[in-house]
């Protein structure tokens, strides 16, 4: 690593999901804000251990769905009753029951798209590069190792303290990672 590279943070390796969960609780209690846990599979209870707040994604998707449904009804009203009025099977021009299926479908479509795009946005994706990739040991995060990285950008961050804390929590290996976030 080149010397002028900025410190990204401290990366600690754990051997089991249980150790990871325990360490997450302690890192949270130590008051760090900018840190994350990395695991090859979803670990039950990790959200609570990390102190994560419920995601706003559900509400975003709900607003997306309501928007989609409203636009769907509005579009059909405009097409059938305003722009090209045509009497079909003797029914009123604005026959709302006939417009429900498309209203429903557009609600689902907008809700799903909002959920998908909102997920990308909230996760900061797509993100082709992460400084943690420079750690050779980190490659095992997709296999059988569990990691916590505390970022140098955290207001509480002191290199020595963070290293000490993670070592004390049972990390099998602690290293400094450099690179631009």
């Amino acid at each position, binding site marked *: 690593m080149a010397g002028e590279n900025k410190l990204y943070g401290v990366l600690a390796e754990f051997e089991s999901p249980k150790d990871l969960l325990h360490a997450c609780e302690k890192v949270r209690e130590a008051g760090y804000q900018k840190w994350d846990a990395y695991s090859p599979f979803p670990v*039950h209870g990790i959200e609570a251990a990390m102190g994560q707040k419920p995601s706003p994604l559900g509400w975003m998707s709900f607003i997306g769905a309501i928007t989609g449904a409203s636009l769907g009804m509005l579009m059909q009203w405009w097409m059938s009753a305003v722009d090209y009025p045509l009497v079909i099977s003797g029914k009123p021009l604005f026959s709302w029951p006939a417009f429900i299926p498309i209203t429903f479908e557009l609600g689902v479509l907008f809700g799903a798209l909002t959920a998908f795009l909102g997920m990308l946005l909230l996760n900061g994706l797509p993100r082709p590069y992460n400084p943690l990739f420079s750690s050779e040991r980190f490659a095992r995060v997709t296999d059988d190792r569990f990691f916590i990285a505390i970022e140098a950008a955290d207001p509480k961050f002191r290199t020595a303290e963070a290293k000490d804390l993670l070592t004390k929590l049972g990390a099998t290996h602690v290293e400094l990672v450099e690179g631009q976030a």
Partner: protein
Amino acid sequence: MSESHSHARELTPGDLRLPESSLFARLPAIGGVIGLVGLGAAFGLSSADHHRIDFWMSLLTAFMYFLSIALGAMFFVALQHLTRAGWSVVIRRLAENMSMSFPVFLALFVVITLGSGHIWHHWMAEGAMNDPVLKAKEAYLNKPFFFIRAACYFAFWLWASWFMTKRSASQDESGDVSHTRVLQKWSGPIVVGYGLTQTFAAFDWLMSLDPHWFSTIFGVYYFSGSVVAFLAFMNLVIIIMRKGGILGHVVTTEHQHDTGKLMFGFTVFWTYIAFSQFFLIWYANLPEETIWFDHRMHGGWDKVSIALAIGHFVVPFLFLLPRPVKRNDFLLGLGSFWLLVIHFVDIYWLAMPPHYVDGLKITASNVAAFVGVGGLFLAAFGWNLRQRNLVPAKDPRLAESLHFQNNWG
């Protein structure tokens, strides 16, 4: 073991039995008395006009209402075996006990049989078959076949609920995994049999009240409401039991969250089916089909129809949508109570209009029959709760259920 975050949960013998002092243990006596008094009152308070049709229709409505909860429970049990579900093991016995109430419904149906000629008089009355439309349906709509079918439905429901509950309870003693395998194998045929019997029962007992009319989706409509009502009843039972210290650390917020999600889902499913039925009939605009909705758009029934759309869809959809609501005892209980109320409105709306074409009528007999049948259903449920463990104690997936957690979302 020093586990700070994931507690190792285990059943204690105290979790398996109802405390004698609990309300649920006294249900057989309380429910039985309320049931008999209620049914007596339903008869006594009913108007004597038209062969006491007031009483017979009240009884049928209450019967179809509570039957739907038992049917929903039986479906739920079969579904858990069919999908080899692990999460639901700790609540499955409650559903099994609800589904063991079919003997009560058989007895009630025998009583209803006495008034069948009045209830289904549109096609059972003498001379009804002079109507060419009904004549064409005579191969299906005739008394002998009607009662043979009813016997088949009850035979199947009694057998299937007994079979699944008996096997499950036997496993409590032996811990033999083969019971689980047999139930998984038979749950497929049971769900098929359930679909057929439940569909035709809804055709026979509710749809044939208006025998000119037909809707192939009608059985699914009754089914969708059944499952909503069952899940709402299940939620209330779980919440009240846990408040009373029963199953307190066996069934958790995680299980309630899931039954809440299912209840929400089936509320949307009901809406989908209800709208599909209305939509196709409205669009085609054929008189023999629209007559059914025409009855429900006049004389006060129009307001019930709108109340159903709002109360069975808009309100529960928005109310049950947020995660915290489903994880809160009071709010989930409130939503469940509401759905049980609106489900009765739904059954009432299905059953009553052909007899009250002139307008909506709510009689004392309606209320008394509801209380009466409800009392008997609760008595059967309480009696069954006392017969066996509250939890399938040796189910191979018990540990998975005890430790079940939802993901963040």
